[in-house]
């Protein structure tokens, strides 16, 4: 029985520009997660190249990819993935401890509006608060690239909006290139550019003439 080759992505040619806020939109199976994994150095394409500045990510080994993630990439997960045994501040410090140009953990928490909750453990925080801690953890290292995988997927609208506000603010204040993947069309309005994927291909790239305020978004 031969293995059937399934292409998650094919023929993708895409540039992300410094400081822009991109939403990768598509239904499940469209290849958006695979694209994000490749951008984050977690997965490698079978063919083609991925360049970050003057580095070819496809040529890096595991140690170099780890270094790339450590120095340049911030991740925000759908399910937050906080370490339950560490407080909010310690979860942020987990990352600031290992990166060279990070900001103080308190500053990162302030960016997401959680200055007062640094000593709380994840189990003592609401879902939205947990996700904002995860965002603080992602941005504390001053990443060049902030990758967010369905950051509002597990949240209700109100909480989701507060998380999106935090992401927008960070994008503006730190200048990190921010890519948010979502199947939620409503979120597309807050992006600089909206890249729609379908069946592993880029279906369309739309530049928003004016970005909507996250507070005005609803779904």
């Amino acid at each position, binding site marked *: 029985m031969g293995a059937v080759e399934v292409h998650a992505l094919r023929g993708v040619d895409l540039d992300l520009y410094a400081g822009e806020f991109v939403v990768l939109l598509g239904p499940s199976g469209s290849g958006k*997660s695979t694209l994000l994994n490749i951008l984050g150095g977690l997965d490698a394409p079978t063919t083609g190249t991925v360049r970050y500045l003057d580095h070819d990510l496809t040529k890096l080994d595991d140690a170099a990819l780890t270094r790339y993630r450590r120095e340049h990439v911030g991740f925000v997960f759908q399910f937050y*993935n906080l370490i339950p045994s560490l407080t909010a501040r310690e979860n942020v410090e*987990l990352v600031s401890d290992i990166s060279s140009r990070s900001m103080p953990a308190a500053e990162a928490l302030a960016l997401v509006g959680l200055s007062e909750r640094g000593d709380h453990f994840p189990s003592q925080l609401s879902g939205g608060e947990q996700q904002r801690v995860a965002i603080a953890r992602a941005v504390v290292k001053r990443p060049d690239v902030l990758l967010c995988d369905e950051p509002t997927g597990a949240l209700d609208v109100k909480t989701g909006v507060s998380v999106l506000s935090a992401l927008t603010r960070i994008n503006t204040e730190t200048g990190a290139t921010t890519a948010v993947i979502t199947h939620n069309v409503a979120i597309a309005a807050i992006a600089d550019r909206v890249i729609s994927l379908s069946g592993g291909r880029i279906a369309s790239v739309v530049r928003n003439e004016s970005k909507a305020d996250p507070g005005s978004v609803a779904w």
Partner: protein
Amino acid sequence: MRALRRKLLRDVLRMWPQLLAAAAVMSCGVATLVMSISAIRSLETARDAYYERYRFPDVFAHLKRAPDSLGARIAEIDGVARVRTRVAVDVNLDVPGMSEPATGRLVSIPDNAPFGLSELHLRHGRMPSPDAPGEALASEPFAEAHGMRPGATLRAVINGRLDELTVVGVALSPEHVYQVRPGEVLPDDRRYGVLWMPERQLAPAFDMDGAFNDVILALSPTANEPAVIAALDRMTEEYGGAGAYGRRDQESDRFLRNELDELRTMSVLPPSIFLSATAFILAIVFSRVVRSQREQVATLRAFGYGRWTIAGHYLGMAFAVAVVGCVAGVAMGAAFGASVTDMYARFFRFPRFDFVLDGQGVLIGLMVGSGAAVAGVIGAALRAAALAPAEAMRPESPPDYRATMLERIGVHRLLGPAGRMALRRIERQPVRSALSCLGIGLAGAVLIVGGFAQGSVDEIMHFAFSVTQRQSATVTFVEPASPDAAHELKRLPGVLRSEPFRAVPARLRAGHRSRLQGVVGLPAGSALARVVDRDERPILLHGDGLVVTEILADLLDVREGDPIVIEVLEGQRPVLETTIARVAKGYVGTEAYMEIDALRRQLDEGAVVSGAHLDVDEAREEELYAWLKGAPRIAGVTIKAAALESFHDTIAENILRMRLFNMIFATVIAFGVVYNTARVAFAERAHELATLRVLGFTRTEASVVLLGELAALTVVAIPVGLLMGRGLAAFIASALGGETIRMPAQVNASTYVFAATVVAFATAVSGLVVRRRVDRLDLVEVLKTKG
């Protein structure tokens, strides 16, 4: 159900390293069980067949000299089925190729076989001819120890004359399955042997024409043994009877029974420990499995699978472990059992001794092994069965952490995030952490149980040969002699010091308990043969109180100050009423001591001696032995160095071979437990570790988070395990305490070091294996799933 069975198969295949580790531990438990039960059955089968076919007697008695007519009267005692009278004497032997003298027990045999009682099994050669002078059969262990074949010669001091004997055959007797010098515990086949000679030759040589000094009886099935013994004692009293006794007190049979008792203990304790470890591992692994499969269970339940189907599913996995563990265990048990049987064949001589892989033992092994597997898994299986579908669909709520006790005092400032994570996990889940600690500790404990025999053997040796028996040699006279004889010994070449002793055969009675036990009279303040208390301080013998060793005190159920009756079975046969003055320390055999002059006063005799303990100048030993070999009045010489050597060659080897098996098992268990603990720790934290990797932690940094916790648990577990091991060793030692040897629960420093090292090594290896899994973590998966 086919789909569920397929899931079971795939789960088993996916978890194979953990399940295999559990099965390996189980196989050790099953193997020890099968090995012990089979060894017991093999020994019992060989013994019963031998005793029956070769007519092992029921009652034994030794006396000074009685006319043959007494034999006919003995046969009339109610309950006596058969009687055989004979001549039995201990003589000094000069064996070619051996510098020191040996002791031979010469036993007369009728002209023609069968003898009616205690038949001989001829291994090689032929029976001695009744008319040919000096022909003898030698016991197999003695012949083997000297490489004697039919035709070999040796010299014996027979009634004061050195006569040449020719060994015409090699034989076995049911009375000497375990051949040991009377009164001793350890076999010394080079220096003690049994020789059988035709009555027509032996009796005249010892002035026993028409007389005998030894009698053995077979009883009818309805006989009352104590009544027969009492009647026999009354009949032989006037002929110097030294007290009749039954099989219970027959040396060889007692040793055999003792060994069977020890094997029975060994068939229970180590397998229980090993199988508990199996159940423990499975409990840890399967709690984890069920937790991680909550949603699968919920889905199955929602689809209509019943509770018992779910429980059965997990028990099915336990069954897979049981099948592998039991099959491997039975195979190992058979292999080790055969090796143990080989070893027994060197101590216990049977005409035929085969290893029997006992069917019942195998069945018990299978049942107990499966039982352990079920016991380990049942808790988790029932929890799975009890999950309500709706509840199980929801993932478990996130673990609730708080600042720990230690943090409130500021310890966390000293720790990095990894340290804090480890500390909080340990404190957050004290039960699980304690169980992991207990598991790793158990591995250390099992290693100590497997290895402590070395320390016990060392302690027995040290106590016997450095603390109490400080003499180089002990000489026993044929007949009690005058003090001149002892003084004469002092003038012999190389003798630096000579201390006389007086030994009399006796029966000790305390309350309703009694025991044939000789009493030894020693000079007060004896420097060579010392009697010491529990703290190894010398006991000064004085007055006519009796000092008994610990095992004897237990057998007679007496304590210091208790009254005791000594029925002396020699000379005037006085009955002495005295008290237990002290209880002396002793690991091996039973002894009763009295101050030598007090004993002589009680016997109403002068300065009579039975023998002497000698301190010998090492450089002149050979000279002394050469003299002793031909000495007419000497019945036996025991040499300390030789006794030490024989101890090493026999018992020590026996104990240490068992120790080797236990060590192998213990090491397997240590690895099994630690590996599974590490794997479960990994499984529980895989999601967290993958998150760390995505956040930019290197493989090493992520591993440190995991292995740091394992290391912390191991550091706590090792001392706990060593303490548990010490406790278990003491428990096993006390359970093994028999009439022959009482094992001291002495654990050597090297055993502790070994146990700690193996556990640390097992942790390191398990850590490395698990680390490889950290390297292979699926980082993409973590983005999609909830932890």
